[in-house]
């Protein structure tokens, strides 16, 4: 089997002491930043991007990123369980039951089932990623410009439709992102667009600037506006030695099926353009709740409600990597940040990546396995350290985040004007949070917009300006049809209710998933 040969090669790269060190640093940094309340994986990666600027070794950097991402997810679940402030929406489901468990003195069991579940799901889904990546990449080599256009459109529209509470607000966010993407010099013709006569905007709006602005600055301003509304009290761990009080035999018995089911839901949803881990974590939570024999325990700390969503969350990440690595199409805000990181190293994910830099791809995949193991061995024993991190006083914490955000933008761009631009975008982000506009579509619009336009124009150049090129191939037409359908998905419950003759007002107005950030 070719895949296993490649994968072994990847392990051969990763298991050198230097790269293991990178992985360990990544996992630790990721957990540290991920534990901080209100910080999700996307921002963690964005804030830590400057650390990698001076590294000239893409393999080491991506091994570090994989560790950061896994660590950030793990840290997020710790925060959800002990503080009930999910750092990212994919941890919201975990927070529901996990925090209840912590309140009833079972914090250690909740943390353990989250950690082991993440490990199980991460390992299985990485295995699936190893198996699927190359076939999908090979399939992708047959894609033409028009197909890429349709795919990018589908990813954008589907995520916008599924994320956030209102389609109109989601579309507004998306349009804003697309607009930001237009600013600067057109890649094909060199013409300036929306630069308003300034030199500063000719180079366009840097993705790092937008991400740091929207997530770090915007989030901090929002927190500042709601001081006093935030949970401050960290649930203490149960006393006892480091070896006691984790999972009982009964906990294991109740956890392993939700882990596997969560993985089964998480991986495919991650691979589809559905906005990453939000949808599968909620699906997993709902499923475990409906299926459980002890349903009345849900809401009061049922371990299944932690095990399932955490596994789904982790599995979804490997799923998200399938379209990201093979097609170059991000389907969540975090994946978009990863893509930005790839581009800093002049690497374009896509089918060519597997041909041009196979050692990088397989080292990255192998590092996912390694990162999983490292997380398991590093984190549960170190849990008391992470609890200390959670107890950093909020004013100091947010002051520090702002310093790092400013530093990140300055290091990335070397210009105070860009720092001001990030602040301005941060004010916009604050307004978006206040008025409940989702953030993820902005990032996707910003990343996918240029791809969309480039492929559109390329397709038309190939077809001599014939617009039917977008409907003449079944694949292209099908993808475009799916994109249109995706806009209707949020309203399905209402439509179904009406078909059944019920008053639509009694049903939820739109399928609601929290937002990925």
């Amino acid at each position: 089997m070719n895949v296993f040969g490649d994968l072994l090669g990847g392990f051969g790269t990763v298991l050198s002491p230097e790269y293991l060190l990178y992985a360990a640093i990544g996992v630790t940094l990721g957990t540290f930043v991920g534990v901080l309340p209100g910080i999700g994986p996307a921002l963690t990666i964005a804030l830590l991007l400057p650390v990698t600027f001076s590294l000239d070794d893409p393999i080491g950097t991506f091994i570090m990123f994989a560790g950061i991402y896994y660590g950030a997810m793990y840290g997020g679940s710790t925060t959800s369980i002990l503080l009930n402030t999910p750092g990212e929406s994919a941890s919201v489901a975990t927070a529901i039951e996990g925090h209840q468990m912590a309140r009833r003195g079972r914090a250690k069991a909740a943390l353990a089932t989250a950690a082991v579940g993440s490990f199980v799901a991460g390992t299985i889904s990485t295995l699936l990623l190893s198996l699927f990546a190359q076939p999908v990449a090979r399939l992708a080599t047959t894609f033409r410009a028009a197909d890429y256009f349709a795919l990018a459109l589908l990813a954008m529209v589907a995520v916008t439709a599924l994320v956030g509470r209102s389609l109109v607000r989601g579309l507004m966010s998306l349009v804003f992102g697309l607009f930001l993407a237009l600013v600067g010099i057109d890649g094909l013709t060199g013409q300036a667009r929306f630069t308003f006569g300034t030199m500063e905007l000719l180079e366009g709006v840097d993705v790092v600037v937008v991400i740091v602005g929207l997530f770090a600055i915007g989030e901090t301003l929002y927190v500042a506006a709601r001081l006093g509304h935030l949970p401050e009290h960290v649930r203490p761990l149960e006393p006892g030695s480091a070896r006691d009080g984790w999972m009982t035999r009964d906990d294991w018995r109740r956890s392993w099926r939700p882990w596997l089911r969560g993985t089964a839901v998480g991986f495919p949803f991650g691979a589809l353009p559905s906005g990453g881990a939000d949808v599968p974590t909620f699906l997993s939570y709902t499923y475990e709740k409906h299926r459980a024999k002890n349903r009345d325990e849900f809401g009061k700390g049922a371990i299944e409600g932690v095990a399932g969503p955490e596994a789904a969350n982790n599995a979804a990440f490997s799923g998200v990597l399938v379209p990201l690595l093979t097609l170059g199409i991000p389907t969540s805000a975090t994946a978009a940040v990863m893509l930005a990181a790839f581009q800093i190293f002049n690497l374009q994910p896509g089918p060519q990546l597997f041909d041009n830099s196979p050692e990088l791809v397989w080292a990255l995949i192998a590092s996912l396995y390694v990162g999983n193991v490292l997380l398991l061995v590093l984190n549960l024993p170190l849990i008391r350290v992470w609890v200390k991190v959670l107890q950093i006083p909020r004013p100091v914490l947010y002051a520090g985040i702002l310093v790092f955000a400013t530093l990140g933008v300055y290091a990335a761009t070397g210009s105070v004007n860009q720092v001001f631009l990030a602040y301005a975008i941060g004010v916009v982000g604050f307004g978006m949070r206040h008025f409940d506009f989702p953030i993820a579509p902005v990032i996707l619009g910003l990343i996918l917009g240029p791809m969309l336009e480039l492929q559109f124009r390329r397709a038309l150049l190939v077809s001599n300006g014939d617009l039917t090129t977008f409907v003449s191939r079944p694949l292209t037409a099908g993808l475009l049809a799916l994109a249109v359908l995706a806009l209707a998905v949020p309203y399905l419950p209402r439509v179904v209710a009406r078909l059944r003759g019920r008053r639509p007002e009694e049903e939820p107005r739109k399928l609601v998933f929290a937002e990925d950030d």
Partner: protein
Amino acid sequence: MSTATEPVRRPGPVILGAVLLTAGIALLWTAIRASGGDLGLAGPRLAPVLVTAAWVVVAAAYLVIQLRPATEQPEPIRVSTPAGVAACLAGFAVALEYAGFVVSAAVFVVAVARVLGSRHLVRDLVVAVVLPLAVYLCFTRLLDIFLPAGVLPL
């Protein structure tokens, strides 16, 4: 989030809708003017017009929804604290290249912590000195990333 018990409607979302719509129209106008009537399908001038036109349509839809009887509204917030944070940020950015990273960040940390309600001046001062200094040394010495040294002879 919901303020269903409170029939009084705040004008925020409506004003936002109007601002978005106005901005959208202005940007669409800019895009159309820049195109000079040349909207070739494969040219660089079509996308700006399409995106800003979509902006106008979505903003209009948002405004119309806000004008209907409100179902849910953003919770009231204090604007003074974020405004204070924003002011500190602006000062930080201005001072960054003149005073240098360490000094400006130190002042910034103390100021922002105050704005965010900290009343432990000594703790804040310790953080304000140690954190920027450590970050500066890490980034410039270990990672070779340039940060303005400013007034300190580092």
